[in-house]
């Protein structure tokens, strides 16, 4: 049987099984006291889902549209499966909500708190993360270029660049609040410090990646430093630089949120998380976390998309 058949036939059954298990888990005589039969059923569903997913992803579709659709479906199905497990375990085993709320509770809380979430998103993501990310990545990049351009500085600057590497958020966040105030600039500053190093290291490695013959070609044209940089070394460095941009896209978000634990006006994702933890409103905490995950993934996805366009020539995109 081909992958498609296995995936295609199993998938609807698996979905039905999920729905049934969810209804079961929430029914009053199972919730919080589910027995071994219930867990056996869930395990069976797990196996079936794994087989179905595997079948689907080994599928070779003809049209690019269908392939793209499948590429979207698989992570969504996989995610749905994770959420299903989470819900069934939390509800079925009666895990206290202060430790781990059920996805359904998080979802309803998310839907009910949209205005607050939007406000927090604007404060944390749009103001702190984006500005900090841009400044941090740019400065890491520029320092790498300066160090590369001026050998004397390379030897003086790079060891000190490593120094900045591990300035921990917890240490710099209070200092940044002291320097830049309570509002978003201090969070952006923390993000700058956090994103600087990955960009520095990756750019330096990328600039060293061009091959000898390729450099010799530039030399034979008596191309200057900047010409060689723009026409050869930066293109070769791009895969490295994009790695840094990707790593930083998630790091920036963590940095900004954590920095808000150390003093902020009363808005922001980190602020909300810290106060809702104390109120034991874990559903709201997870709603914010979900927001962070969505925003971060989209951000990452955007960077990855640009990467694909800019480094299409790299072997990793040429299968």
């Amino acid at each position, binding site marked *: 049987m081909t992958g498609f058949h296995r995936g295609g036939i199993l998938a609807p059954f698996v979905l039905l099984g999920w729905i049934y298990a969810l209804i079961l888990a929430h029914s009053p005589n199972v919730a919080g006291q589910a027995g071994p039969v219930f867990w056996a059923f869930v395990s069976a569903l797990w196996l079936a889902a794994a087989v179905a997913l595997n079948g689907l992803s080994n599928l070779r579709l003809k049209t690019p549209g269908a392939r793209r659709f499948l590429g979207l479906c698989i992570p969504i199905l996989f995610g749905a499966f994770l959420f299903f497990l989470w819900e069934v375990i939390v509800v079925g085993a009666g895990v206290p909500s202060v430790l781990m709320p059920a996805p359904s509770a998080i979802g309803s809380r998310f839907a009910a708190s949209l205005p607050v979430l939007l406000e927090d998103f604007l404060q944390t993501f749009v103001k702190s993360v984006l500005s900090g990310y841009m400044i941090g990545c740019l400065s890491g990049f520029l320092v790498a270029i300066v160090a590369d351009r001026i050998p004397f500085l390379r030897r003086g600057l790079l060891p000190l660049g490593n120094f900045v590497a591990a300035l921990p958020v917890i240490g710099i966040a209070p200092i940044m609040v002291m320097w830049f105030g309570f509002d978003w600039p201090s969070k952006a500053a923390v993000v700058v410090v956090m994103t600087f190093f990955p960009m520095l290291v990756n750019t330096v490695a990328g600039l060293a990646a061009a091959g000898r*013959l*390729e450099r*010799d*070609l*530039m*030399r*034979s*044209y*008596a*191309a200057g430093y900047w*010409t060689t940089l723009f*026409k*050869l070394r930066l*293109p070769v460095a791009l895969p490295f630089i994009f790695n840094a941009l990707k790593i930083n896209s998630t790091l920036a978000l963590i940095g900004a949120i954590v920095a808000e634990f150390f003093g902020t006006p009363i808005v922001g994702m980190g602020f909300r998380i810290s106060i809702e933890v104390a109120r034991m409103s874990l559903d709201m905490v997870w709603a914010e976390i979900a927001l962070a995950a969505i925003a971060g993934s989209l951000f990452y996805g955007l960077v990855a998309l640009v990467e694909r366009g800019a*480094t*299409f*020539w*790299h072997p990793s995109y*040429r299968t």
Partner: protein
Amino acid sequence: MGGSKAPSGLAAARPESDPATPAPVVDIKDLSLTYEAADGPVYALSNVNLQIAEGEFVSFIGPSGCGKTTLLRVIADLEQPNGGHIHVNGVSPSEARVRRDYGFIFQAPALYPWRTIQKNVELPLEIFGISKGERRERSRRQLELVNLKGFEKKFPWQLSGGMQQRASIARALSFDPRLLLMDEPFGALDEIVRDHLNEQLLKLWDKTRKTVLFVTHSIPEAVFLSSMIVVMSPRPGRIIDIIDASHLGRERKLEIRETPEFLKIAHRVREGLRAGHSYDD
């Protein structure tokens, strides 16, 4: 190394240069180069002496690994010799390089994978600041010459080995350098294309009076193209024979390959090559 830094005036004032003939384009004296490797040095060039006058077509032929590429790289200032003197167009190789005196065709195509074929050919033109319209025109012409019309928008990895090599030839010809350093440019081409390009190259050489330094493994090709043939032998790389072939004339038809004159020179080259080999195995 010190010698190569001598002021450019010195070259013209050297006693052995006849004031009637122009200063040589390439002037090499006692050149040696050793590659340092972890397991001991490799003597790539040893006491090489060579003078190439303007407008000559010089072929280098010799066993694999004898130092042909290395010699071309020294002339192009891509490698620093350990000893001896070298002048290119009367100045040090590095000055010549900075003046953009030459074009280099490497043994491997060295195309940039993020550029289309056309953009690869236009690369030197971009660097030399030539206008966009002119670049288009020149790359079009060169790609046509090497028979790559229709492949302008392809990326290097979408071309066959021979096509990539032709693209790299087009790239070097595009900016019309006075001195051409060509390292086995036609190695991956079939006989027909090769003959065609040989003729084109000869025409170009005759018309523009360029100086060409040409590495090849094909004896007929060397004899057909050259006004002078340099035979080398390996480890340490030395010149063992320099054959004058200028009496074959500047305008040659493919047919001269059957003439006794031609065959005589070819024979001498083959003998030299064989001698170089006896040294090796």
